């Protein structure tokens, strides 16, 4: 299903940015929320999420911070930045326009 994979490639960034904009999140939490909220539609190869997160961080759209839990475990939480919020809004605007245009073609409004 390479078409689905291509679609997902283009949507990964806004999806991740949107999730992180809701609250600070760490990698494993993002994987679980993605699967739950999409009702199983999005199932990342878990390891490949992290290069995507690092890419967003390097672009200045999110910022990662280590936190140590009481049981000694460490987690890297990601927060969205101002620049990330701006990019997210732009991408969502583009997506809504695109989705609306596709819907107009495949499901024309009835009178």
């Amino acid at each position, binding site marked *: 299903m390479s078409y689905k994979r291509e679609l997902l490639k283009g949507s990964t960034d806004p999806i991740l940015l949107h999730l992180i904009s809701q609250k600070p999140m760490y990698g494993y939490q993002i994987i679980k929320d993605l699967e739950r909220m999409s009702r199983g539609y999005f199932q990342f*190869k*878990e390891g*490949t999420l992290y290069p995507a997160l690092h890419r967003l961080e390097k672009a200045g759209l999110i910022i990662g911070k280590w936190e140590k839990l009481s049981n000694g475990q460490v987690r890297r939480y990601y927060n969205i930045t101002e620049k990330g919020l701006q990019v997210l809004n732009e991408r969502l605007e583009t997506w809504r326009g695109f989705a609306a245009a596709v819907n107009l073609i495949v499901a024309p409004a009835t009178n």
Partner: protein
Amino acid sequence: MSYLHELRDYLKLEPSVKDEFLLELSSHVEEKSRELIEAGLPDYEAKLEAFRALGSAKLIAKQIYEVYSQGTWKQALGAALPHVLIAALFALRLLPTVAGIITLAAMVTATVIYGWCHGKPNWLFPWLGVLLIPAIITGIMLIYLPSGWTWFAALTYIPLAAFVLVLIVRQTLKRDWLSISLMLLPVPLVLGWVLAFSLGNEYFDARHLYQAGTWIALSFAILALTVIIFTRVKQRWLKIWVLVIPEILVITVVVLSSNSTISFWGWLLLSLLALALILGPAFIEKKVK
């Protein structure tokens, strides 16, 4: 845990970035395993499933490499700076004056010490390569010593030089063999220039360096451009080609400006040496690992 060892081997990142990335994945595996164990899976199977869900270590390493492989323009210019300096000093005929040599040596040594003690960033390797140049020239100058002394000097100098080179190479191989290739870029060029001025002569005449200053400047300017493009390019296979093609071009410039001192066979030998220095570290890394 062999998955993480395998991933560590594949990762070609600066040490601090590599350690943090592995810690993040390790924490992910720990948390997923714990959930699977709570769901009833045995310890060993839970860990196996957690690693399996991560996917191919090779793919993860490739993807994270492409995130960090492209340096900024600032890093690219910083990496190219030693070659730019040499090009400028030769163009202004400030090399090979004593003042020029001392200034360059001091700057390069200080920068290398700083970079070596601060995590060996990617921009350090071209500077390390420039630091090797005096060693290469000294080695070649041994042949001009009075007879009898050459063998003695060679027997003491060559093992010492080899020891230092092996030390640097071993440290660098832990990260990425391409960094060694980048470091060794000036070697065939310097050899070519020294051969151009010394072949067929009884002694090495430094006046030739003044006369050929513009050509030497051009050759180092090409190296500087190579380093900038290498740093800015993302894909690994493209980085290799970026090293190979300009290096052959630079050797051609040296041979053409040598007034037939270096023949076609000299050009071929220098080009083969360049290829060996660029691609050889890959084979050494495989052997070492």
